């Protein structure tokens, strides 16, 4: 695990694009969707934040939507060879 990671650019552009796409299509306030990318030990963590009123829409009943978002974004990350995790922050 000695790969160098540059924390300035998202290392998982595809996963980030997918997350952006999903989030903006699920919320009332797409303009308030923002995603921060940070390196983790073996991949990238994407931190999603949305308007407070939209939290429920990206989390869903019992976290179901959040779970689905993670699953799909992880798949996108896998496609570009990056282990991606998604955090929803408020």
């Amino acid at each position, binding site marked *: 695990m000695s790969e160098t990671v540059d924390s300035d650019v998202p290392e998982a552009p*595809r996963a980030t*694009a*997918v997350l*952006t*796409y*999903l989030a903006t*299509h*699920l*919320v*009332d306030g797409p303009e308030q969707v923002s995603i921060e990318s940070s390196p983790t030990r073996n991949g990238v963590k994407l931190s999603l934040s949305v308007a407070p009123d939209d939290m*429920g*829409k990206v989390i*869903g*009943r*019992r976290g*179901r*939507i959040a*779970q*689905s*978002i*993670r*699953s*799909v974004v992880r*798949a*996108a990350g*896998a*496609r570009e060879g990056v282990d991606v995790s998604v955090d929803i922050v408020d």
Partner: protein
Amino acid sequence: MEWIETTGKSIEEAKEAALDELGVDEQDAEFEVLAEPKAGLFGRMRGEARVRSRVRPTAPRPKDDRRNRRRNRAGGAAGETASAPGAVATTAVSAEASGSDAPAAAPAGGDPVGEAIAEAAAAVTESPADKGRPAGSGRRNGSASAGTGRGSRRATEERNEERDKMSNVDVPLEEQGKVAREFLLGLVQEFGVAAEVTATVGDEDVIDVAVTGTDLGMLIGPKGTTLLALQDLTRSAVQQKTSAGNGRINVDVAGYRRKRSEALARFALQIAENVKATGVRQALEPMSAVDRKVVHDTLTDVDGVSTISEGEDARRHVVVVPAED
């Protein structure tokens, strides 16, 4: 009727039994606890937990569920406005004819566990399905069916979590299909895969959205988990855009679900033959509620065997047992 009643040693168990019967995941069902289990002396059960449940409207519906389903839409929106929390008239007569052993306990009023469980239950909108199940198929342990209209539906048990965003409206299915298709097209583009997406409006308010192309494995994921997630997100996106309260969107990628349930049905028939030949019950590996329903439904019409589900949660699985005669 679309409401069913199930029993179990615990509320969880009763819910599991209900999910099996409905063939959906927990998230797609709504529950109402009718009676809590009562522990007797030395841990013996004096009373079973009793739960009333149904498929949540606009929630996933397995394809195999379409038969026997009759859309119950008297005037569309009118039917929905009448269904404010607590205002629903209940005529909960289960399709089950085998409920001679119905517990006599009346629905408990104000039980704390019931309240907790009801957190998961969303308010009713309109009847999604008429589920006719053959009587006496032996899928439930201690099945109960009786009219439970009286007092079984407390306003406090109603939650409207999913639909707190907006009121549901009837949106033409073609329109929903179009929105779903565009959503998925955009998504696969972000994925960087070339895929075609078609939306077909089928009978009984089902919208089948099929993603086809090459190299779609990553959209399916291990055991179809990514596909399920895609379906969830597609439904949410369509709901977000259209506020649709009608219709049911099913997403398939590269024919995965169709092939899988066909294969599963074949497999189940094979197992049934084994069980009939050997007279020995056979447990299948743990499966999702949708898959279990495929097995149950496939074997319902097979003489000489019956099916039950055993195990909790993720370990829940179907057991094919030789029919007693």
